[in-house]
């Protein structure tokens, strides 16, 4: 059982939880989405700056939450830069499967972006902790909401 905990709280996660990357509000952000987890009151706001071709030129976030939700938001900002909207959405679907499906392998991904999924693989430990899947996907839901035109999404 302790192995499951160590899988969940890997050093990478603890590091991103303590020192999140891209934790800021970019002045040129043109899209914004908020994610809220009513279970614990955690919230994140995702800022996107998309360029003329629809690529994500910058992505950052602000918010508060548990180690899992903050680490996931931080890692997400690292893998989304340069992606098109469609690629970002595909990656979210892959990431969701990564967090919920036992035996889901990077090769099965539809996004065709093994590097990004490799980076996100550290979050696969949430599979053993179903109530924490919402923490891991909170930022992604908010990102998806930003792409949809903004507003707030909840994990319910």
């Amino acid at each position, binding site marked *: 059982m302790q192995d499951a905990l160590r899988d969940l*709280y890997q050093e990478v996660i603890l590091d991103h939880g303590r020192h999140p990357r891209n934790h800021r509000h970019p002045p040129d952000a043109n899209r914004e989405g908020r994610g809220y987890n009513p279970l*614990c009151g*955690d919230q994140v706001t995702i800022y996107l700056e998309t360029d003329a071709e629809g690529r994500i030129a910058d992505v950052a976030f602000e918010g*508060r939450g*548990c180690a899992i939700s903050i680490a996931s938001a931080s890692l997400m900002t690292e893998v989304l830069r340069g992606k098109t909207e469609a690629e970002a959405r595909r990656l979210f679907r892959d990431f969701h499967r990564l967090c919920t499906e036992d035996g889901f392998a990077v090769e099965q991904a539809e996004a065709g972006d093994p590097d990004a999924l490799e980076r996100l693989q550290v979050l696969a430990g949430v599979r053993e*902790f179903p109530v924490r899947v919402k923490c891991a996907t909170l930022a992604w839901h908010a990102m998806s909401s930003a792409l949809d035109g903004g507003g707030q999404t909840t994990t319910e």
Partner: protein
Amino acid sequence: MATLGSTAVAPRSGDNATLAFDVERVRHDFPVLQQHVHGKPLVYLDSGASAQKPAAVLETMDEVYRSGYANVHRGAYYFSQHLTDRYEGVRATVARFLNAGSDQEIVFTRNVTEAINLVAHSYGSKLQPGDEVVISEMEHHANIVPWQLLRDRAGINLKVVPIADDGSFRLDAYEALLGPRTKLVAVTHTSNVLGTVTPMAEIIRLAHKAGARVLVDGAQAVVHGKVDLRALDADFYAFTGHKLYGPTAIGALYGKAELLKAMPPFLGGGDMIRSVSFAETTYADPPHRFEAGTPPIVEAIGLGAAIDYVTAVGQDAIAAHEAGLLAYATERLSQVEGLTIFGTAREKASIVSFALDGIHPHDIGTIIDREGVAIRVGHHCAQPLMERLGVPATARASMGLYNTRGEIDVLAEALEKVKDIFG
């Protein structure tokens, strides 16, 4: 805090016989406490959210379904009459438990939330725009949102009494908020987050002096000590069965007879009427006026069994046991480096909310679950209070009559593991 709200309560007969409180014997009464979680013995420290049930409650409910179940208030046949008598009999049990004036002052509700909504709708329908309802900063959402809905519906003003830094109720600020427009004060008797026991007798005395009525949220209070409604002189008092070692979906609202009598119905339907025609319907007297539809019959009888159980163990003995647990938990957890306890009021029930430096409560909850320890993490349905404390969430250990000092040790050791993982 053996007695909530009054110092002038004579000990009940039988209490002396129960002072020899044996927690191991009590634990034996709760089948679920034999369970293991993730291979570890269950350490259940979440009774403030919902308490476990003794075999007496489970067996009583099972026995009703097996040996004589029927709907109440309807049939001319034996089982219906028999069950009606048992169901109605629980009103008397509740009335005795709270020292209410009469069993006709006890309205069965699903829970405290429903009870407060009942008062907000029914009593609240008499309020005028500009009238004031006073609540406190440490209320559960159940005692905030119904008043906000009433505000939107009826144009009342909502006033909020601040708490002191130690989590105690600020009587001075409260007294200053009371005015000629104050019609109702709705305050918790015991905070579900901080454990604070509010000075309810004084709150009620001051409200009455100002001409206002008082609704008490007693969800956490009835669990930890005796409540004496006549000594308190409360106008309305709500509690729920599932935190009192009884079933879910059954609670009760006490209301003074003259208040209930003057109140319009809450929900309409069967059981709450005297006669119905398409031209005109007349309503039953309280308490049935407020109990539309088939009630939670077996749950009510289960609540009666839970009250009988708690009374048999002895409320004074339970209060003394829990006071010991609270003192031990406060001391033991304070030794955990980096741990902060929220709520240190002098009058406090066995609820300890805390935070660990740099570690989110949700992460604490996940890690100690693997040690078999069940606590509540989150905002505890008290987001304005979280705001006041300056935290998004807390971890909360809430202790009941079956908890032990050994379990507090397990919690403290599990918290050390959390710190190990987070380095």
